[in-house]
């Protein structure tokens, strides 16, 4: 039976901000990560908890001014069922569907996936590839953090201790394509060995622009593979480019051996799934 630290359940955002400002407290939304952490076996038990479940401001999924707005408490199930997500960001729907199984998807939230900042967080490469912006807030006010600047180190983020994740904003540029692929440990309830998102805008004869290659489980944080992006930027998905991109990616990544996979596998498979995504995009 895990520890039962005291918990506050504010109904309003300013109350939550006050509690956060008052000192060490750990937010909990769906609890799928936090409830596992409070056994004390996997690290220190939080002194105090902050229940986000009554903050209605953090809910909802909507489309506004060309951007998809996801409340921090949007669950994976809500994302999977959301018609705007399905229409405008199907890769995120795909990612949400690979997380846990029904029980986890019904509880886990996109804000939690970000805050937990696991290198294996399955939605995170999609958000990186989509140039998402994270709206955070606290007593000091609100600010926007591009997701590319959010992950600082292993499970460390740019979120200050007195701030909450409020919303994820995903710009939806016209003509952008976004693909997702997860290689997990099994077919459900799986943590990824490699997870990848690839985004681009096709300018026809001018090739691809704004190419994003984002990966999870291959570094201490979710990352973008910038050298590989550079190979693809301005190019098209030809066999030669795909070969070069795959080789560049394999050279660029520094994955590790761990309980789930090996460095060698992660490097090779990252290259191969990128190659496959490019092959599919090129139609060859």
């Amino acid at each position, binding site marked *: *039976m895990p*520890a039962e630290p005291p918990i506050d359940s504010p109904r309003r955002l300013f109350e939550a901000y006050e509690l956060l400002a008052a000192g060490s407290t750990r937010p909990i939304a769906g609890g799928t990560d936090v409830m*596992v952490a409070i*056994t*004390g*076996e996997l690290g220190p038990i939080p002194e105090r908890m902050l229940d986000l479940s009554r903050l209605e401001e953090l809910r909802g999924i909507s489309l506004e001014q060309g951007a998809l707005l996801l409340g921090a408490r949007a669950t994976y199930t809500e994302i999977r069922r959301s018609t705007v997500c399905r229409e405008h960001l199907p890769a995120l729907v795909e990612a949400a569907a690979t997380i846990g*199984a029904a029980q986890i998807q019904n509880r886990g939230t996109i804000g939690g996936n970000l805050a937990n900042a696991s290198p294996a967080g399955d939605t995170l490469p999609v958000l990186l590839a989509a140039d998402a912006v994270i709206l955070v807030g606290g007593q000091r006010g609100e600010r926007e953090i591009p997701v590319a600047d959010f992950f600082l180190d292993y499970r460390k983020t740019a979120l200050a201790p007195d701030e909450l994740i409020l919303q994820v904003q995903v710009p939806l540029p016209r003509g952008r394509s976004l693909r997702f692929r997860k*290689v997990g*440990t*099994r*077919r*459900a*309830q*799986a*943590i990824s*060995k490699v997870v990848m998102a690839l985004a681009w805008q096709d300018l026809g004869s001018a090739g691809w622009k704004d190419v994003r290659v984002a990966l999870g489980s291959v570094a201490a944080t979710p990352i973008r593979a910038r050298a590989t992006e550079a190979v693809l930027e301005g190019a098209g998905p030809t066999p030669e480019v*795909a*070969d070069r991109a*795959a*080789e560049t990616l*394999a050279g660029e990544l520094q994955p590790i051996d761990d*309980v*789930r*996979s*090996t460095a*060698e*596998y992660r490097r*090779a*498979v990252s*290259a*191969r*799934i990128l*190659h*496959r995504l490019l*092959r599919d995009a090129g139609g060859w």
Partner: protein
Amino acid sequence: MPTRTLTPGTETVERALVIDPGQRVPGRASGFPLRREGPAKLTGAAKYTDDLVFPGAWYGITIRSTEARAKLLAIEPDPDVDWSKVVLATAADIPGDNVVSLIKDDQPLLVPVGGEIRHHAEPVALLAAPDRETLRQLKGRIKLVTEALPPVFDPEESDHVFAQYEVSQGDVAAGFAAADLVLEGEYRVGHQEQLYIENQAMIAVPGEDGGIVIHGSMQCPYYIHKALKRALRLSSVQARVIQEETGGGFGGKEEYPSMLALHASLLALKARRPVRMIYERHEDIAATTKRHPAIVRHRTGVTKDGRLVAQDIEVVMDGGAYCTLTPVVLSRGVLHAGGPYRCPNVRLRGRATRTNTPPNGAFRGFGAPQTEFAAETQLNRIAERLAISPADIRRRNVYRLNDTTPTGQVLRESVAAEEVLEQALGASLYERVRERTARDAAQRRGSGTIPAGTLRTGDDRTATGIGLALAWHGAGFTGSGEVHLASVASVELTADGRLRVLTANTEMGQGTKTVFPQMVAAELGVRVDLVEYAAQDTAEVLDSGPTVASRTVMVVGGLTILAARKLKAEVEARNPGVPFQEAYRDDAQAHGATRIDQQFEPYPGVVFDDETYLGDAYPAYGWAAAVATVEVDLDTAEVQVRDVIAVDDVGKVIHPILCEGQVEGGTLQAVGYATIEEIKLQEGRYLNDRLATYLIPTALDAPHIRSILVEAPYSGAPHGAKGVGELPMDVAAPAVVAAIHDATGVWIHELPATPEKILAALRAPDGGGARRKGAAAA
């Protein structure tokens, strides 16, 4: 008796054991009794150990070593803590022998000060408190002072041998000299966790007589009974063991519960109140027994047409830190190591050694899955080398009636190896599918697997493969085991006219509580619901032996049938002309209770010499074939096992649905063993020690499993049954590995066949040259 095949769901299933066709039994269970404790399990009413409430009970936890090997110099509780509010127990508190009684006396309940810690999760002290918060706070306040000793992790480097065996027939050197091809192979398998979904759980309640009553999750109440008597110096009456509803065992609750029961009892005696010890999953995986890792080396001589002429097989098992059941596991592994094949010249050698890792122990299959994976993969590689179909090479070598095994046992009856093989081939359209997968592979560019360099993809995303394996499983205990056990099972007509079956054999999901009354009711000619199944409580039932080794239905079930026959005969003799079902109630009123205690008598003609290891290693064998089809992702080497046709000869099917349930569940455990179940170790510690990292198949990972049951009855058992629990565990893993080879062209020699290993083999410079590794022409 003839061999028959039962196709589930058709009317060919014999209903001889069905008593009351008028009873309402709708759906698929039609004609067979429904699971007796099923309604309680389905409504949440069934009480598992952790569901039981004992007022005033404390909670107990284990303080464990964190070192793989060390001398324990002192146990130092923090002097700043008030320890008077809790109970701390160490080896010094053990009233009797500090031994978990099993085969050898090497494993202590708790490492004594001055003693040697032999694995990183070894129990050193116990702590009980009224609440779990106190335990959480105090757990880290007990310091173990130790002096590190050099650990041994490689079983081949260990000089401490738990057991070794050598069995041989014929002249192996002459056999190799006569062979057209000699093929060598080395195969490795790792740990496998039983992963019963209910963790180990035990509650000890001190009795007024100074004794202990144990309520717990277990397979073998009398193992615990024996262990309690010895370590706690209790009489047979003072030690009482009651099995509660048990949420899966698979061997994992064969011997380990003795340790936990002793721990709970020690705390309960010292605290003078009930103590609950319920493991959390992390502790359960980190500290309890696993399937033995093994290294199996084959050298096989065959003729050009694929007939085995020599087998030289070496088995090395990693016993872990203590002996547990290792000698018996090794013995079964060695005896099955050649596979179900005739070979005139055989040498089987095995040894099991000690390492500084948590002890390994019983797990469904008990040594055979390890060695049969090696045997089947070796045979499949030979077939490939000789360009013979895996089906044909088996047809040429498979045991037939009157063949002789490596122990010199002549198979006089109940040999269904060919039958299960042909059934599996037919049901899976094996040869036709194999032709198609071969065509597909040939059409793939380049090497047939990965066409265009190791970082690039090919035209095909996936490849399909089909694989075949065959296995045998000795029914019941090895050698003279049953004779030594001398089990007793009882059937009783009580004074108030009730019918009861009394055995120590536990229900852990496999259906004991359903099939024992079913068999007895059939014998007595009464409705099945009129036969009660007494609780597995050592105060109530005699020792009918452990619930292990697929022996429950075969051996103990046989005893209940014999007991029922005698009861029927006695009652009918007292009531001439009146059939039992009409006579028994009045008979009880007139004559009081009648109880038949039926003791095991050796199966006729079965002789085994424990010293020479020659003779009838098992009274009979079950036979199994599996055909697996897999789909391998050619980009990532992810494997999806699509279908498994599982054909199992169990001698006699008592209850088709429960029997199929055993086959399907065992098959999936074998598929998990083959593909994803893996424990990585670091300095003797399991890295995959949580459910997030030790993975078993989900419903989406599980293949379609089609079970075909075959009956080749064993005449020594009154019903002909040979057991089913372990058989399917032996055969599916090598079938999956063969299917992966069929899809990709690479042989995986080490389980599990993970994508990491498959991709590495595919990326090897010679494109899957593993198939040629170690091969040498004679």
